């Protein structure tokens, strides 16, 4: 599909459809039985970009890598730090999946940087919401509604984002803590400290846990700021340069997840880390807590649906990003009453329920 008209026709033809961009999140872009895949990767290209405005508009199938290369030329970036860039993720897929990377800690997630949207709804109509300027309060906030919508409310065709100037330099302090409890205590200290932190991740090991704290800004100020982070952590190793870069690239690209394993996103708050760790013991061999403990990335060799019951018991939700089709939403489902009403408006015939 390379034109909006193609997408409208496909929706109107009436088969159940699931949009697919780069296909980097197979748990979300593989259709269930009886549904068809709607390839929107051809609908690509940056339409408008004026660095002075801190905004750009692009077609939904545009690859993040292309966008980032363009922004980098002007010293700007996507502050929500989208994941799976190098694997080929698209703007539309990132919005529909509602995914942000570790750098979202500083300024917010994809929901905080999306400004405008155009989508084809289940009636085949092209609907626009939001705008192309950094501040706008006119009409219902369709752009935010589409974040995490998993293609169930409309096929994204065009998106506008806010961007920021990229910090010219980064540095990471890595601190291995002897116990998980100690790591969580340190995490809280940083979480509430009056300092600007770009990323704050916690990696549990065998009884131990490592904190990785990234700071960004003008190079001249970084060493002094790093010392303050170290003071709060009671020490820590400073990582810089290409090694530092690789550390966060691996986090963002999920390079730590073995091929063929399932990957589940679990939103939570730092308070729940210890609880989730005990609940997952023996069930999910790899975990990474990101954005100050606001999201857990859980990797396991078994089908993700095995996490459904433990997540339910904890009152948490999960999203299986890697995994077989039909098991995307796990654990508790929030806002269902609201969801029913919205679905009725945009897709009453369930054409977008692939």
């Amino acid at each position: 599909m390379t034109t909006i008209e193609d997408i409208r026709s496909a929706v109107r033809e009436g088969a159940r459809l699931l949009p697919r961009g780069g296909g980097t999140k197979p748990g979300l872009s593989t259709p269930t039985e009886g549904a068809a895949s709607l390839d929107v990767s051809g609908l690509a290209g940056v339409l408008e970009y004026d660095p002075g405005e801190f905004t750009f508009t692009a077609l939904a199938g545009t690859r993040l890598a292309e966008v980032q290369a363009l922004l980098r030329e002007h010293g700007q970036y996507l502050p929500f730090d989208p994941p799976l860039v190098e694997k080929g993720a698209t703007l539309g897929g990132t919005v529909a999946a509602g995914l942000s990377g570790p750098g979202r800690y500083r300024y917010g997630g994809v929901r905080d940087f999306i400004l405008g949207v155009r989508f084809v709804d289940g009636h085949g109509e092209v609907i626009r919401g939001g705008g192309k300027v950094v501040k706008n309060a006119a009409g219902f906030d369709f752009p935010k509604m589409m974040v995490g919508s998993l293609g169930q409310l409309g096929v994204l065709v065009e998106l506008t984002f806010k961007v920021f100037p990229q910090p010219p330099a980064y540095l990471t302090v890595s601190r291995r803590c002897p116990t998980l409890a100690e790591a969580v205590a340190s995490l809280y200290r940083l979480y509430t400290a009056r300092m600007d932190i770009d990323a704050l991740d916690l990696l549990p090991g065998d009884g131990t846990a490592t904190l990785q704290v990234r700071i960004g800004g003008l190079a001249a100020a970084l060493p002094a700021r790093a010392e303050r982070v170290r003071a709060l952590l009671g020490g820590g190793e400073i990582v810089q340069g290409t090694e530092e870069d690789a550390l966060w690239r691996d986090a963002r690209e999920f390079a730590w997840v073995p091929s063929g394993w399932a990957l589940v996103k679990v939103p939570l708050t730092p308070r729940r880390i210890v609880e989730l760790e005990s609940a997952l013991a023996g069930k999910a061999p790899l975990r990474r807590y990101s954005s100050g403990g606001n999201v857990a990335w859980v990797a396991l060799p078994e089908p993700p649906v095995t996490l459904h019951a433990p997540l339910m018991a904890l009152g948490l939700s999960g999203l299986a990003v890697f995994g077989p089709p039909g098991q995307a939403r796990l654990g508790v489902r929030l806002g269902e009453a609201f969801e029913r009403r919205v679905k009725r408006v945009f897709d009453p015939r369930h054409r977008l329920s692939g």
Partner: protein
Amino acid sequence: MNIDGLLASLAQLYPPDRLLRQPGELTPYESDGLTAYRSRPVAVVIPETQEEVMETVRLCHKHAVPFVARGSGTSLSGGSLPVKEGIVIALNRLNHILRLDPQERIAVVEPGVINLDVSKAAAPYGLYYAPDPASQQVCTIGGNVAFNSGGAHCLKYGMTSNHILAIKAVLPDGEVVHLGSESTEGVGPDWVGLFVGSEGLFGIALEITLRLLPRPETYRTVLAAYHSLEAAGHAVASIVASGLLPGAIEMMDRLAIQAVEAAVHPNYPEGAEAILIVELEGDAEQVEEEYKRLSQVIQNSAAYAVRVAQDEADRQRIWKGRKSAFSAVGRLSPDFIVQDGVVPRSRLGEVLAEIERLGAAYGIRVANVFHAGDGNLHPLILYNGREPGAYEQAEALAGEILRICIRLGGSITGEHGVGIEKRDYLPEMFTEADVEAMWRLRCAMDPAQIANRGKMFPGSEAPALRAIGLHPLERAGVISRE
């Protein structure tokens, strides 16, 4: 619609002192920050519990009577203007901070909690609630949520929507929904994002979970004076191009500066055609480095006077001028309209020249105060409501400014919402299909269209009576408009 049936039921639910019916009691609720409009509701109820709010909404639904939820009534778009055949639900007594968890950086509040009170409660923990509309001393979180309020720090920190984690709300047909969670991340569509800014059309938020941020360690506030608006505009462009991300970039024109000088004496440099306020904030070492860069940019701009806040008191003095600009302009004229259009930042100069030309053509004075970093304009259009036709002229001028914003690819509202004021312009910014989709969504949430009827969508109700002069609270200096 069965208003008598509703009133009978409400009399069962509320004691007489919380069910207002007398004209004298209703007067304070007749208008909000959009003072040009006035409308008297049939009754006002003052619930004290969430259950009372839910029950009231259910009764309104049952009897098909419209309701308008109201906090402090500071809306500048007429967002809380009553419906004359309906009731007002005044939420001021639902003003409890239910939970403040400094470790998790969360506050759970009721809708009637005052914006600034959240930051005050969080201050002992080194935390604050970032959205800071100029009316933050009186405006409530419920109203902020309904209209996605902004403030001076939106470029860096976003609007209200970016700081709301979860909402418990009663929909207009009485169903109670729980949206979002305490995490900044979510699974499934961002329903919280959709609810925020829905202008009361999706019902009433009963409990709101706010995200708190650690207070920046340091501020560095710089004020620069220019001999022309254009020169100040160029300075804004240079700051943006320098790679800096200030917490705020604010601008005022000559008329606004004069008004502020007369009102609060902030001692701004004399003879300025434009004043720019730029604030850096964050880690001390970082701000120090950024300040070096900012100083260079401002030195290279055409600023003829530059002032740097020496201490917190000095910083507050600079901000006081900016934050009291609207009420100060109110002293120049018996009435004024505050506009809220947005243009791409690079078109600021163009739109200001256009506003100046229009003002001259209409023979109307316009003062400009704006969030330059966001391209969010606040032209203050001065008029005397006692002169026949003056309001119509002012409104016509305001409409022309909105159309310019749309033409330049901007928005009709940056932070005040559409409300009743700009509802006729919604179809100029969006296509018929867009507005139709929004309308269908409104109807899915509120089949009887009783929640804040007449707002956001064009032509859905007869215009309210017009009023003259400042709002009583504004005259008393309690509220100000931004």
